């Protein structure tokens, strides 16, 4: 198995991307942002074109191209747009495009959660703070923006550093991605989760009229639902238990993304949920402590606040 992509081609294209980003960063005077964005995009396109040439059979579909182009393009605008509000809005766009990619990857729940939580909540907070903390621009001119927004710092060195890292990362990924141990072809480790959902199977079977109205899924001697996932069959019987038979589980009855995620989350990471809760509590407390405003206490309020003798060294 040859390399996924010629490493030197990869590094060259990373360099092209770097040049584009360096050009696109805001700077004093005329900044060739369009040119930069074009060059950067060309570099990225080159990577995918090269990938496509060597793996024509697996050429990704249009959605992938569309969403990744939007994601990366708006990410570029996030870091190049001189106006913080626009940058934040472009970040929202990046998030939305990422959601698209998530959905392409079959992670529907995370995709939508990302829209709601990230784009909906967090970014709104950002916008809020940006508007709070920025002097209201009077005119719609770039000149009215603060100097620190208009001029980026060390664009060349920073870009070189950043893309050195990108090049090294992608280079290592290109070398290693082929040997990651993957599930055997045809095997879906998630299929086993169906065992945890007898109710869902029963409902599906009933809706498809594969079992009768009164039939229920039986329980095996070990307490588990009597399903044979290899053969995709299930033993069902009437409530009295008199009549037992085996019903096939249709191929499209499978654990949905949300269900799988829920099982993973609750079964394997309950502790992490608790820690996340503590982090959120702590962060709330921190934000409150940090953002408190000064208040002036009246003279008569001070003893109440600090107690008698509290203030005397």
């Amino acid at each position, binding site marked *: 198995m040859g390399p996924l992509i010629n490493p030197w081609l990869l590094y060259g294209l990373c360099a092209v*991307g770097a040049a584009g*980003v360096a050009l696109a960063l805001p700077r004093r005077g005329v900044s060739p942002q369009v040119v930069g964005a074009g060059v950067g995009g060309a570099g*990225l396109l080159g990577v995918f074109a090269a*990938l496509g040439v060597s*793996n024509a059979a*697996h*050429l*990704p579909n249009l*959605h*992938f191209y569309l969403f*990744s182009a939007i*994601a*990366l393009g708006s*990410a*570029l605008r*996030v*870091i190049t747009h001189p106006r913080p509000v626009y*940058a*934040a809005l472009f970040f929202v766009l*990046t*998030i939305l495009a*990422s959601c698209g*990619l998530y959905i*392409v*990857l*079959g*992670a529907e729940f995370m995709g939508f*959660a990302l829209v709601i939580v990230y784009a909906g*909540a967090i970014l709104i907070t*950002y916008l809020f703070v940006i508007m709070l*903390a920025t002097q209201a621009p009077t005119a719609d001119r770039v000149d009215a923006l*603060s100097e*620190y*927004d208009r001029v*980026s*710092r060390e664009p060349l060195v920073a870009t070189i550093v*950043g*893309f050195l*890292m990108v090049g090294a*990362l992608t280079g290592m*990924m*290109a070398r290693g*991605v082929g*040997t990651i141990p*993957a*599930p055997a072809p*045809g*095997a*879906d480790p*998630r299929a086993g989760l169906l065992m945890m959902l007898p109710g869902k199977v029963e409902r599906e079977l009933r809706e498809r009229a594969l079992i009768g109205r009164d039939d229920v899924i039986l329980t095996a001697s070990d307490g588990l639902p009597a399903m044979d996932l290899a053969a995709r069959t299930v033993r069902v019987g009437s409530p009295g238990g008199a009549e037992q038979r085996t019903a096939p589980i249709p191929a499209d009855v*499978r654990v949905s993304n949300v269900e*799988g*995620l829920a099982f*993973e989350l609750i079964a394997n990471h309950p502790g992490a949920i608790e820690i996340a809760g503590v*982090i*959120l509590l702590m*962060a709330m407390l921190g*934000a409150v402590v*940090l*953002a408190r405003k000064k208040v002036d206490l009246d003279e008569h309020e001070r003893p109440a606040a600090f107690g008698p003798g509290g203030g005397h060294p």
Partner: protein
Amino acid sequence: MSAILAQADYPALMSAPTLFHYLVVSAFMFGLGLVGFLTRRNLIIMFLCTELMFQAAGLALVAFSRFHLNHTGETFVIFVLTVAAAEAAMALALVVLLFRRKETLDAERWEEMRG
């Protein structure tokens, strides 16, 4: 090529991009976030750039999750999201505090200590 994502119940209408495609997008997003962090001087945008890097990690996690056909990566993204939210809350509060002190968001204004 084993790095194909078209395993199991991959949506039929999609053809088969390889894992590496997603990783490239993720790495570039990560790099852009890094470059932004290094070049932008607005504290809020700088923090936005770290969020971009978190987002890149999230994309990689979901792609890996898809590749390994388990949900661990997606679960990880939930927690990444949580931490990002927590960090954002605190960072924004800090930024507000800083802005009150110096009436500016310029990171370069905080350079009293050195050496």
